[in-house]
């Protein structure tokens, strides 16, 4: 090897007025996030599928609500002293009975779904609704305000309604988390596959890139959740289900909060898992366990929404808490402090996932070719 040593300029530092300072960490993160959001919003497939999702959500809500209202012939028993208080309505098949005992008998043997009995102590209605295990929603919705309900054989909530709400939370979590989880995974691999990442890494740090991608996709996912929440509120208002809205409002808000942190947790893990492979075809091999984590809450909440033990566990496990805790809040099973404790657990897990995810991401990002082994990715 020979190295020429003749005198030549040797300093590479040139006096430049054009070279700007490096962007701040925050500015770098936001630039990356902005690009993530922009490229997604320009994808026709994304816009169309999102629009369809919104329309379906609204349609489902309105249809479900109207169906509940139009249930013809809810059979009820009414005592004489309450008869004047019952709204006259085609949807009610009213049987007049002499007294409360007779009414309860009809409720108990299933002849009627509920009874309305005079009760001077029940302000401001002057009557109480008596039902077997749950008061028919369609009946309660006839009143401007919710009357007091007495259950002969109490079960907290209407089965059908519980099932619908469980599916609602489950499916919204599943679709949003899998959509944006796979988006971030594809975006990470796209940068590896095209080697753009080698150019990016000479400009910004790997953790800046990761933070930008997670934040960008979280913004998109949260926007979708908030629009869906708005659709739920507006839809319920339009069809006059203000009573249901009252019960669902707080759980929906909690769902949004839990989803925010739950998604950041998943996004960091998806980015890390995707960084371990170099080709789009291989994404599935490392993100499969995460896909299971996303699907689990959906199936658990559908099969076990009447099982308090499973729901309680779900509401504290970080990956299923975004579905489990709002569900328990809706059912009225959770104490006021429970969502706060669960949220703290979720946030702590989220911080841990970001640290581990960032390590895997940084260690795997520039390794092309064969899939990086998890142990190597963690050691670096």
């Amino acid at each position, binding site marked *: *090897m*020979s*190295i*020429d040593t*003749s005198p*030549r*300029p*040797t*300093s*590479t*530092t*040139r006096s*430049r007025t*054009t*070279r*700007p*300072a*490096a*962007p701040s960490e925050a500015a*770098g993160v936001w*630039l*990356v996030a902005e*690009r993530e959001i922009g*490229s997604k919003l*320009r*994808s026709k497939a994304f816009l169309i599928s999102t629009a369809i999702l919104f329309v379906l959500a609204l349609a489902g809500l309105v249809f479900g609500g109207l169906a509940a209202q139009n249930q013809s012939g809810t059979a009820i028993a009414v005592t004489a002293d309450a008869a004047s208080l019952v709204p006259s309505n085609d949807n009610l098949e009213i049987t007049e009975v002499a007294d409360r005992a007779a009414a309860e008998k009809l409720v108990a043997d299933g002849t009627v779904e509920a009874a309305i009995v005079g009760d001077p102590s029940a302000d401001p209605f002057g009557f109480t609704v008596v039902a077997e295990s749950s008061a028919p929603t369609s009946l309660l919705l006839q009143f401007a305000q919710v009357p007091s309900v007495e259950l002969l054989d109490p079960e907290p909530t209407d089965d059908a309604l519980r099932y619908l709400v469980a599916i609602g939370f489950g499916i919204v979590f599943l679709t949003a988390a899998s959509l944006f989880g796979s988006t971030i995974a594809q975006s990470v691999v*796209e*940068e590896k*596959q*095209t*080697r*753009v990442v*080698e*150019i*990016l*890494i*000479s*400009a*910004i*740090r790997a953790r800046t890139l990761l933070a930008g991608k997670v934040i960008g996709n979280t913004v998109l996912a949260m926007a979708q959740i908030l629009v869906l929440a708005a659709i739920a509120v507006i839809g319920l208002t339009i069809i006059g289900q203000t009573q249901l809205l009252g019960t669902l409002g707080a759980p929906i808000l909690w769902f949004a909060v839990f989803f925010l942190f739950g998604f950041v947790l998943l996004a960091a893990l998806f980015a890390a898992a995707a960084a371990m492979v170099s080709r789009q075809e291989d994404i599935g091999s490392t993100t499969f366990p995460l896909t299971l984590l996303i699907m689990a809450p959906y199936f658990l909440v559908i099969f076990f929404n009447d099982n308090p033990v499973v729901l309680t566990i779900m509401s504290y496990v970080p990956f299923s808490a975004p579905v489990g805790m709002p569900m328990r809040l809706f059912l009225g099973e959770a104490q006021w402090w429970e969502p706060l404790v669960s949220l703290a657990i979720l946030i702590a897990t989220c911080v841990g996932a970001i640290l581990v995810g960032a390590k895997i991401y940084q260690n795997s990002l*520039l390794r092309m070719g064969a899939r990086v082994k998890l142990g190597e990715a963690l050691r670096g």
Partner: protein
Amino acid sequence: MLQLRNLDKSYGTHRVLTDVGFDVLPGRLTGFVGGNGAGKTTTMRIVLGVLAADAGTVTLDGAALGTDDRRRFGYMPEERGLYPKMKVLEQIVYLARLHGYSKSAATDAATALLERLGLGERLGDNVETLSLGNQQRAQIAAALVHDPDVLILDEPFSGLDPMAVDSVAGVLQERAAAGTAVLFSSHQLDLVERLCDDLVIIAEGTIRAAGDRETLRAQHSTKRYELVSTGDAGWLRAEPGVEIVDFEGGYAVFDVDTEQTAQRILRDAVARGDVGSFAPQHASLAQIFREVVR
């Protein structure tokens, strides 16, 4: 000055670089030539910090390279690809902004550079819709837009048509003239020979020759001369100290033992008839290359 010293790299048991070292000087174009698998890309990736060397150092102006120093680099990876579904201009603007340019400064710099590279008509097109040659120009813009102090380009000319070669070569020469240190690899030896101030030749993971182009040529020139005359040049065969390489009528290419022999041959040739030309033959890069990689 970018200095590479004693770089070693193995993939498993396969040694790809052994004691690789050379300099890349500011204000000069350095050509990095070698066969397939010689270690060019590996060396460049180590310089960029995209790959870690097993041993050795890379320094810029005497200091070891850190993350922030690499912001002063412009890099064109071997495997091309920007974001396929992003518009050309937006993409280059994005990269400039990641280097700290304001939106307007980034837009101005990116637009001017893309126009200079002949992509002025395609600014609003998605990268995936461009021809390979045009994608390559966009890739070069990506390496240049933040006005780097050091340019590391892996095969910047491969796949370009002659027009594109000229515009890219022009841009690189401008950058070098402005003080940038430019290192680029290429298989096109004639192009490297035409463009480069300095040369680095690598084979089987070791540097076989490095330095100033003219110095290398001088080092590798055999004392070879070409004679074009009107007479029959057959008399050369009988001259002491002369070895004929090629011969046909009045045309001859021959090696001499000393400068004096060459001068004597010239005088004899003039005495024997008209001499069209008599000139020393410089070793071409292709010749040097074949010689050093052997």
